[in-house]
């Protein structure tokens, strides 16, 4: 396994971990954190590819990560605001209880 492949497997593991959190945990805040881990995993990829890629001087990977961090921050803020809005109505943050809309 080359170092690049090791990095990519690392990020794949982090991505899957985040996905499992999203799929298994019922607390909406933890679900959001799972999504954040998935975004982080993508960032790991960008840095790894930049580090071992053919055109490091262009710095595309680094630039993308800077933007992705900002996007992740925005998503986190909005997600938590939505969780609080839901909490106002159902007094808890269990996703399983949010089932007014179905069928």
């Amino acid at each position, binding site marked *: 396994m080359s170092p690049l492949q090791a990095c990519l497997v690392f990020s794949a593991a982090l991505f899957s971990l985040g*996905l499992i959190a*999203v*799929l*298994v945990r*019922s607390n909406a805040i933890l679900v959001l954190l799972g999504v954040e881990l998935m975004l982080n995993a993508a960032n790991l990829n960008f840095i790894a590819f930049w580090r071992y890629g053919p055109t490091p001087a262009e710095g595309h990977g680094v630039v993308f990560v800077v933007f992705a961090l900002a996007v992740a921050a925005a998503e986190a803020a909005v997600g938590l605001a939505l969780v609080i809005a839901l909490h106002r109505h159902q007094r808890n943050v269990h*996703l*399983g209880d*949010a*089932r*007014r*809309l*179905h*069928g």
Partner: protein
Amino acid sequence: MMHLPVQLTWLIPTLPAAAAAVIAVVPARRPGLGAGLALAALAGSLILAVLALGGALADPATRLTHTFTWFAVGHGAIRLGWLLDPLGTLLAVMVAAVGLLIFTFSLGYLREDPRAKQFFCFLSLFAGAMLGLLLANSLLLLFVCWELVGLASYLLIGFWFQRPAAAQAARKAFITTRIGDLGLLLGLVWLQDATGTLLLFDGGRGVLEAEALSTLAGATTVGGLAVSTAIGLLLFCGAAGKSGQVPLHVWLPDAMEGPTPVSALIHAATMVAAGVFLVARVFPLLAADLALPLAPVHALSVVAAVGAVTSLFGAAVAVAQDDIKRVLAFSTVSQLGYMMLAAGTGAWTAAIFHLLTHACFKALLFLGAGSVIHATHHEQDIRRLGGLRERLPVTGATFAVGMMALAGVPFLFSGFWSKEAILHAAHGWAVSQLPFLVALAAVALTAFYMTRLLAEVFAGAPRGHGAETAHESPAVMTIPLVVLAIASVSLGFLGTPWWPWLQRTLDPTFKAEAGGAGLMAVSIALVATGILAGWTRYGRHPRSDARAPDPLARSVPRLHGALAARLGCDELYAATLGRLNAALAAAASALDRSVWDGCVRFLARLGVYAGIVSRETDEKALNGGFNAAGDGLRASGRAYARTQTGDAHGYVWMLAAGFVLLALGALLGEAR
């Protein structure tokens, strides 16, 4: 005489369509305004259509076309156009004229209906679309109008939506004809693909011109069929749906739930004839495979066979119906089959001749029935009518004229001449004598059931409250009857064997069939037999009691029962397609229980769904109403929607699973 420039053809369909749009926004408090607008617009169309006909007749050999580019896409362009030839303009005049009479009749018929405004709006929409259909020089434009006509028909059949039967009939008509339209659409797409155009005539490049025809007939497709045969049969599917040919006839009798003027205009005179018109219009395409002696089947043979079956079926079933409008409806089915038979045996001019005469006398008969229904406070059962000869003298007399025209009473009545033309064509058909024999049988049956109808309704003594208190309808209703009666007599002389003006106008290459005296004698004898048989059973000793059994039911009860039940055609659908559906449903539930729950459930639903779609044509859908089939459909939809649990985790899980499966599929596909 002034002629209509072909560039202004669009005015003819647009006038009624625009009137429909205006009527839609006119306040409902002023029903008279809407009706007046509709009448004025259609009268305008009639004048323009007559001018167009004049132009087309002045030089029948050259076709006036006007083509314009609708829009360009990619490298090609979609072009539409108008066509003024004797076929289209003649029928346009007929539609506008008959329509005008029926509009007038409706003024009286719907006087008390609060929604009369809407009625005229829909009627105008229908008239506009129908005129557009007749004058289109592009199959695409024709298709657009074709669908609009279907939509208007749907709206009008369901006009009295408060009656559940009317709402069901409307839906049934729409869906059944759409099954046929699916074939038509596929045919159009194929045609566009094969020839690159949908214009009928385009200076040598149209689909009906020699170059395209030889290309289409030259190429073969699955089973050795010529491409032209396959496309032609697909187009015929659409025609069969609209014109109520067996096995897609089930909607037409039910469509009589609509107001009677609608039955007269749409389901007797014009829209149902659109299928015959389409066959006549694309006749060169259908006939293109005749030059191939080795073809497994010729498109026209199919047309002739379907027409023959339909004409006999309709006539036989009409014998045993007790509802005045249903008798006329099955008679329409039978007569449409007759026209198809004519077109299939190559005599499309005879088909159009019969279309014209039939439009007049069938509209007359339906309006007469409407007058009877109107006068007897919506009594439609002929067993409870009777004795109306004295009470409704004008209606009775004109109805008798219509009856004789339909039955083919010799020499004076138009139906005789057009029927003769068809019989001659069928007799001369080289392929098979079967359509000819079937047509002869239908002639006798037609005379029989029309005599029965006339005798039951007008002869004898009143057998119900409605018939006892009947009064003649107002002049606004009887005048159209008289006009139509005159036309029912006079139109026949346009196409007699000695002076086949109509046939020659439609088809300059027409050659009169030789040697008809013997055949004519046979057909007159058959008509006489039919009328005599009807008279001895129904006219000589009119029934005295509404509950007395039908004479025919006494002598041949089993046959009568089968005919009254419409030969079990609908039950047959239920037994075959319905059972298939049940088997599929059983299989589906068995699969449901198995391990592969998710995936398999989906497939099984698909199976159930396919079954339900086929069931749409069957009797269950008819009696339980389309609601039953609709409910079945919706139940499968609801079953699907239950997978939408509302659980957000489930949604994301589906995303992940979808990703995994798609990616695996892509990887495996690439590895292969």
